[in-house]
Structure formats: C-alpha cells, structure tokens
C-alpha cells in the first residue's frame, strides 16, 4: 500500500483543512496510508539562522523522503498560501530538498465559495520553483468552499457529489504517483572510461586534478595540491574525494572552513563526468543518505587530566607538554581540521639567539636602527621597562664601540627583543587611552622564546639554520624559519607527536560552556560531530582557541582604535577565529584586557581577505590610489598608517602597476594574472585612461596622479605624501589595478592572564583550573603585534599553560 504524507497547511488551532485531511485519511484507508503532519512547531524560516538540522524540520524531511507522495491541504490567507505553509516549504528548499521530484496533490478548504482557489494557484507556482521542484499533479483541482457547512458531526463530507469528486481526484493521484515514480528512476550512468584532466578551484587559484572513471564508477580522484597553502584545505582534499567515491555521488556536504575548496573539487569532478558523456545532475541527485539526520546520539562522558580548547599551535603545544609530564590530554577542535591560524602563518618565529645570529653579517641600516634606539630619551620609556632599557643601551654601545669602522655582525639580545616588543606595541586609541605590553608577560615571552625553539626542535620541527629572517612587520632579523610548508611545519610535527604519545584530538567538537563547582573549573560541555552532547571532566582547562579576527560584530563591539570597521570586512584568518574562548572565559568571570586594539592587513583582497591575489609588489613599487583615482598616503608607511588612510578613503583602494612593476610581484604567475583578469578581480588595460574606466574613476584624474607620481620618482622626492623610497615609474603598458581593502589580521586583546597563564577574574584573582595561551589571551602585544611574535607567543605560553596546569592540579597524582 502506498505511504503518503498529508500536510495541514496552517498552524491555526481550528482548521477545516485539518478536518479535510483527517476525513481523507479515514476515507481512503484501504487505498493508502496517510500520515498527517502539523506545522504547529515549525519556526519561521530564516536564512541567517539555519534550522535544517532541528528535529522538527528533520521530521518533515525524513517523512517526506520516505513517502510515496504528499498531499498539501491549504487554506487561503490574503489571496495566498499561509506564511506557516510557505515557511516549511522554504525550509524544505534551502539546505534540504525532500520534495524534489516528489508527487504532490493540492487540496484546500475555505470559508468562502472560493475554496482557496487563489492560494492553490500560488502554491502550485511555489512548488514549481527550482529549489522545491515538486511534481504537482495537474488538473483535478479540489476546492472545498464554505467549509464550515461541509462536514457532518462525524467529520464526514455531507454532499455525496463532493465525495465522488474527491474519490476521482485521489484515484488519479495514486496513478500519478506511479507515473512520477517511473520518471524518477535514474538513468543508468555510464562513462566513457578514462582519466580526465580537469581543474578544481582552490584557495590560491586553480588546482590541477585528474579523475579516473571506469564504465560505471568514479574510481579515483587525484589532486595536485602543490600550489595550495599547506594545512588550510587539506581536509577538503581528503574527505570530498573520498565521499564522492564512497557514495558514487556528487551530493556531498562541503567541509566547514573549506567550503570554497570543497565546491571546487565537486565542480571539478562534475566537469570530468560531463566530459565522459554522463550527466552530472544525475550524480547530484544521488543523495547517498547524507542529508538524513543522524539518530539522536547518547551523551558521551569523558574524563581526562587536562582538556584543551583549540587544536592550533598553542593548543597542540600545551597538549604535547601535558603528555610529557605524564598526564592525560584531550584536545577539542570545532573545525574538521587541526592547525587553526598557525597553518596560515608565514613560518618564522621570533627568538633572540645571539650565538646563532652573531654568525651573520649586519646589513646596512641595522646599526643606524640600534644607534637611534640607544639615543632615545629614557624618560619616554615607561618606568617598568626603564632599567631594562638602560642595560640594553649599554649592550648596544659596547657592540657599536666593538665594531666601529667595520660592517659588524648581526646583534641581538633578549633585552632588544623585549624593548622592541614593548615599543612596537605602544599605541593610543581614539579615546586617548594609552596601552603597551604588560612588563611581566613581555619578559616571560622574550626570556623563553628561545627555549620554545629548542623544545620544538626536540619534538621534531626542523629549522633552517642557514638564514635568519625578518617576518613582515617584525622590525628585526630574529626569525627562526622552519623547513618547508610555512606555518604548517609546526602542526605537521605537533599533531603526530600528540597522537603518538597517548593524546586524543577530537575535531568537529565545539565547546559550549565550561563547568564549575565550588569556585573552580571542573571541565566542559561540548557538541560532537553528530550533534551529540559531550561532557568532559578534567582537572584543568586550557583555552587555546585563538582570537576574534573572523568575528566582525565582536571587533566592532570592542573597537576603540580604528575610526570604522566595515560590516563586510574580510579577514586573513581562518573562519574559526570567532572569539569562542573569550566568550567561554568571560562567562565564568574572566577579566579582559586591551580588547579595543586589533591589527589589520591593509593590502588584502576585498572579497576574500587573501593576501596572495592580484599583484603584490615590494612597497617601494606600491602606487596606491583611492576610488577617485588620487593617491592618499605614503605607500611606505606602517601597516596602521596604510589601514587608517584606507578606512578614511572608503576602504577600497587600488594598487597601480605597469608591466615593469608587475615583474617585481612575488606572488603570482602570468597564468594566474590572466585568470584573475578574466574573472574581473584584477584589471588590465593598454592605457591609463582605459584602466581608469575599468575601475570607474575619472581618466583625467588617474592620468594626472600617475604623471605626478612619475615626476616624484624622477626628483627622488614626494612633496605630497613624502614616500620614503621609490623604485620604478608607472609607464610601460599594459597597466594593472589590483583592488585592495584592509582585512582583519590579529586581535591583541583577550583574557587577562598572569605569567603562569592562569586566567584572572576582575578582582585579579586566579580562576582555579582555568588557563589561556595564544591569541585568546591579551596583555602582551598591546596595541600592535610584531610580525613573528605570535608564533613565539603560542609556543611559549602554550608550554607555560601546560606546566602550570600540571603543577597546580595534577601534582598529587604524580607524587
């Protein structure tokens, strides 16, 4: 017997449409089993808060998916279908599509003679929409007018002619269900066997991919990921091909945090399928059960010594250190892949290591920098740092005396690192509030950064001893650069270390709150990948969940430094960086410090926040123009100066380059440039006037701007903005314009901690059992973080947090 679902098209308590369906259920019970579904608990559809996974929507999804057909009984409100009915159809055409190809019969009852005629017409059109794509039975319109007089006391239709007509409509529907069923039998899929070379769209452009198809199966998917930033999208490159092959389907869910890459891979396979003579849409219809909800999972309870929130560099370091102390460690990560923001880092970490650095020759300008530093008026140094500054001055003067008349070697010391971190972080916000790094924390960082390098070596990170680098925005050459893979090099060593030493890493597990008892932290509650509740009891919790650069609302809420932060500002960060740890901490009373200060990367892609699109050239070749085509800033200025100038000019600006400047770009290739020009994300023209038209500025203005700029290059002086260094003029066609906008990059503020990484409350007391390390904590970098210092921070404070947690909370058991 056929199984049908009947939907009562209203949430009203009294409904003649419900009565009509109930009658049909009884009247046709020998011909079909009709289950009636009510809209009472369906929330109003909202695309911004997805409820597709909620039990009420999933109930509709599963029942409709399992049914042979659907009957919708609609009232008429204001000449159309009720919002409650429209709402469930919107839910069922958003992420889920159970009505796709499903036979549907429409009936309706109303007070007036119209009998919902107009609502039925609207409903037909809605069900025809591509997102719904139902197969609505044509003709046989069943309209029950004056419904209040239509039923007898037993709920049966009084007029026999009406019953006869309903019988004929229903008989036709049962046949219609069979006919549509045949239509829905998928064509057998057959491929022209072979290996197809296609492309997937990745994070940094197109990625070559090869798809091997046999006569009836997708056999293999190979992706050449060599051009991709290691670590960011790995999980998509692994899981999406596997899901496609396992299910022989293209209806696979994108991986959160790597949705662009996920869709890129799916589309690439679709291209191969098409080239092999099959219809990719047939594969997209094979849902492989992925949309069905998981059965309600039982609560999972776990017990450990130290639970760590976040599997980036700080979290994995803390876990490794806990394991080294002989305790148990559990790491929870809300994203499918580990690595957090660390995999997006350039790689070098700051640590003063004079014995090593002294082997390198000084480069021009460095002595001058040291001299200028030593000549600073000590009265301008804040009191906590003054004694260190005096000592450093002695060190510098000794060095300068020792190397008079020679080029000299590269100088460094813990004190130089400390004072540079302090000076680099000194800022005043819009309210006149001054901030600089908290002395004891900065001391802890600069004293132990080198230990962190040594420790990382001991767990398997290899550093390139042959060069000392200066990361962008670092001020000094003290960067220890890991071999290969940029920031991912750290994660590649840490993750296997943790896993092979008995630690557990659970991904797709989002922590919801910390649990407390008797004034101390006792563990936490999280939600696992199958939406199951996970309760963890632990002796200590370490928050290592990163900052909030991917949370625009939070940035705007706390911001006291920038004059404006756009709603649509992008980020260079992983989308995971939404300030979860700060939220978790403040809910148990943690104090916050320096929250108003955030760091922006001024030259980012306006649509993605990426740094490596367009033409990225050395700053001496930057020519920045605003949306009027005029220069607006000294292009050689600091990140903060460029960012604020961009904000003052409406955020969006352009880097103008000519064919010679293009050759100094370090991020791209001709193929990528052509791709981006074709995609409209980079502009190219044979004349400046044409270029101006493309970026919608007045050609005369842009031409005049460039003419003036070229004359400054000739004169070696920029009277307008005083650019410090020039190189090339803009004169050789073709000309380029790369659109840029500031993107959020680092959040210096966070949970207040002490030198033991204990989280403090507003009274300055330790919250027992709670620790924080990395960008989630504040106080160190203050108003501006030096490039290379965030890695130094996470590896140093990650170890400190673990050591404190073990010493404070696990001491009894180790004895």
């Amino acid at each position, binding site marked *: 017997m056929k199984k049908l679902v009947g939907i009562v098209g*209203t*949430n*009203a*308590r009294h409904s003649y449409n419900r009565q009509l369906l109930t009658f049909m259920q009884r009247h046709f019970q020998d011909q079909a089993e009709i289950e009636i579904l009510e809209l009472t608990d369906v*929330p*109003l*559809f*909202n*695309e*911004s808060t997805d409820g597709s996974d909620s039990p009420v929507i999933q109930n509709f999804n599963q029942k409709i998916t399992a049914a042979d057909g659907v009957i919708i009984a609609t009232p008429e*409100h*204001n*000449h*159309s*279908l*009720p*919002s*409650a009915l*429209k*709402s469930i*159809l*919107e839910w069922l*055409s958003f992420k889920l599509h159970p009505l796709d190809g499903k036979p549907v019969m429409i009936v309706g009852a*109303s*007070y*007036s*003679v*119209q009998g919902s005629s*107009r609502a039925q017409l*609207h409903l037909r*059109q*809605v069900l*025809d*929409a591509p*997102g*719904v794509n139902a197969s609505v039975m044509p003709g046989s319109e069943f309209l029950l*007018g*004056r419904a*209040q*007089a239509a039923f007898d006391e037993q709920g049966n239709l009084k007029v026999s002619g009406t019953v006869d007509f309903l019988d004929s409509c229903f008989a036709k529907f049962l046949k219609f269900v069979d006919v549509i069923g045949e239509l829905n039998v998928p064509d057998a899929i057959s491929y022209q066997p072979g290996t197809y070379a296609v492309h997937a769209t990745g994070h940094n452009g197109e990625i070559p991919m090869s798809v091997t198809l046999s006569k009836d199966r997708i056999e293999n998917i190979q992706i050449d990921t060599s051009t991709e930033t290691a670590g960011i999208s790995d999980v998509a490159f692994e899981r999406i091909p596997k899901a496609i092959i396992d299910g022989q389907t293209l209806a696979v869910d994108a991986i959160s945090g790597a949705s662009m890459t996920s869709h890129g891979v799916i589309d690439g396979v679709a291209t191969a399928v098409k080239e092999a003579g099959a219809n990719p849409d047939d594969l997209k219809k094979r849902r492989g059960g992925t949309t069905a909800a998981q059965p309600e999972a039982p609560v999972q309870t776990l017990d450990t010594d130290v639970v760590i929130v976040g599997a980036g560099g700080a979290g994995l370091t803390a876990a490794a250190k806990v394991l080294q102390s002989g305790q148990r460690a559990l790491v929870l990560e809300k994203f499918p892949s580990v690595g957090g923001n660390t995999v997006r880092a350039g790689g070098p970490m700051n640590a003063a290591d004079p014995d090593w650095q002294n082997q390198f020759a000084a480069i021009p300008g460095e002595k001058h920098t040291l001299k200028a530093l030593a000549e600073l008026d000590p009265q301008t140094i804040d009191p906590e740092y003054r004694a260190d500054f005096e000592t450093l001055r002695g060190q510098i003067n000794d060095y300068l005396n020792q190397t008079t008349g020679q080029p000299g070697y590269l100088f460094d010391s813990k004190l130089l690192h400390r004072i540079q971190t302090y000076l680099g972080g000194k800022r005043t916000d819009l309210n006149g509030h001054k901030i600089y790094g908290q002395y004891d924390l900065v001391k802890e960082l600069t004293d132990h950064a080198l230990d962190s390098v040594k420790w990382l070596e001991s767990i398997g990170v290899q550093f390139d001893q042959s060069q000392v680098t200066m990361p962008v925005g670092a001020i000094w050459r003290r960067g220890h650069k890991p071999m290969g893979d940029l920031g991912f090099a750290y994660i590649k060593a840490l993750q296997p270390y943790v896993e092979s030493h008995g630690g557990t890493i659970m991904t797709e597990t989002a922590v919801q709150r910390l649990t407390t008892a008797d004034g101390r932290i006792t563990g936490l509650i999280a939600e696992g990948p199958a939406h199951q509740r996970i309760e963890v009891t632990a002796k200590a919790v370490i928050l290592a969940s990163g900052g909030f650069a991917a949370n625009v609302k939070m940035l705007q809420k706390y911001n006291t430094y920038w004059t404006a932060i756009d709603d649509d500002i992008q980020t260079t960060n992983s989308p995971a960086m939404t300030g979860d740890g700060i939220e978790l901490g403040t809910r148990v009373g943690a104090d916050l410090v320096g929250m108003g200060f955030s760091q922006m990367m001024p030259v980012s892609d306006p649509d993605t926040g990426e740094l490596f699109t367009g033409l990225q050239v050395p700053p001496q070749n930057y020519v920045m123009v605003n*949306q009027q085509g005029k220069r607006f800033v000294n292009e050689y200025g600091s990140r903060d100066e460029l960012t604020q100038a961009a904000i003052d000019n*409406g*955020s*969006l600006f352009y880097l103008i380059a000519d064919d010679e400047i293009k050759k100094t770009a370090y991020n791209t290739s001709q193929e990528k440039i052509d791709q981006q020009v074709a995609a409209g994300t980079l502009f190219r023209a044979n004349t400046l006037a044409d270029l101006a038209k493309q970026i*919608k500025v007045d050609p005369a203005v842009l031409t005049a701007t460039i003419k003036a700029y070229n004359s400054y290059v000739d004169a070696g002086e920029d009277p307008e903005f005083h650019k410090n260094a020039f190189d090339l003029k803009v004169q050789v066609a073709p000309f380029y314009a790369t659109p840029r906008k500031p993107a959020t990059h680092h959040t210096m503020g966070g949970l207040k901690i002490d030198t033991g990484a204990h989280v403090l409350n507003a009274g300055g007391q330790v919250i027992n059992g709670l620790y924080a390390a990395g960008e989630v904590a504040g106080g160190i970098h203050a108003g501006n973080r030096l490039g290379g210092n965030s890695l130094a921070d996470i590896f140093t404070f990650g170890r400190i947090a673990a050591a404190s947690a073990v010493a404070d909370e696990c001491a009894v058991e180790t004895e």
Partner: protein
Amino acid sequence: MMKLVGIVGTNATQSTNRQLLQYMQRHFADQAGLEICEIVDLPAFNEPEQHVAPAAVQTLSDAISAADGVIFATPEYDHSIPAALKSAIEWLSYTTRPLINKPVMIVGASNGSLGTSRAQAHLRQILEAPELKALVMPNVEYLLGHSLQAFDANGDLVDADKRHELDQAFNEFVAFVGLTEKLTPTETFFEQSRQFSWSQITNGEDL
C-alpha cells in the same frame, strides 16, 4: 515633506533589499522622509483567538498608519514572497489593518536575473485581498536583478540605467500618493473593511 515607510521584506541578516531601501532613503532624502522598518522581530503569525496585535506588530502598524505611503522591498523565495513577509502581512490583516487605502509601491532585489518578478506579482495579488485593500500603484514595477553586484562600496546603485529607472518609478509614486489623497472613500468603506472577516461570510456572500 512626504512621510513614507519602507518595509524590508525579509528576516535575513544580509539583504540587498535592505540595501535598496537604504539607498532610496538617502537618494530621495529631499523628496520624502523614508523610515525603514524591519520585520525580523515580529513573531510568526499563528491566528490567536483575540485579534490583538503583539507589541512589535503594533509598532509596525503605527508607523504605517502615520505614513503617507508604504514601499515594500521583497526578495523572492520559491517564486513567491518570503514566509517572513507573508507572516507580517497576515498580522496586519488579522489585527489592525493599517494598509487599507494606503498607497503602496513594490520594489524587489534578487541575485538572479529576474529580480523578484514573480514575488512582486504575488505581493500585488495579496495586497488586493479584502482584508488588506491597499492601493498598489499600477503599471510600475522596479525589479533589481543581480543585486549582489548592484551596489558599490558606498551603497549606491552602480548602474546608471537602474538609477534612472528608480528615480522615475519613485517620482511616479510621489505623484500617485498625491493622487490617492483625492480619492476619499466613504467612512463606511473603511468601517466595512476593518470589520471584514472570512469567517463572517457564512451565507457564502462574497464581498
């Protein structure tokens, strides 16, 4: 100056229909004061026993009553208006009925190329219903397709033709509002409309 209310026809956080109304608010500032109303805080319509408007509905209703005209900016979901907008309209029709005889202009933005044509057609039919009886401006429709690319960083319409078309449509609406002031239906018409209820027509007499 003319007072208008613009209703954002969606509860979504990001909406180009909201952007369109914001643009109109700025762009037509010297012709009319346009107050933008959101429906995101309205509860889902559920036919309560008492025909009393919840506070959020009453606020929206008061704004409409005080205005000379109303502009609906509707997205298109599944060939029709969003459930959230339909719900707001159901509240108004079920409780205070402020749209009776109110001049209405319909605009809509969508990311597809059709620019909400079908949703707008539905909305016209809905606003004609006897419980609403709005005076929808005839002959003028403003459809903004590819709306994600339609605005520049300052929120202004990029395309000159679309700007011009909107200027014209808005001018016609201003004239239409002036025209409707001259239509003064009798008090009885208002009274009947306010009392209209489908459940009262037990004798099958259609109004």
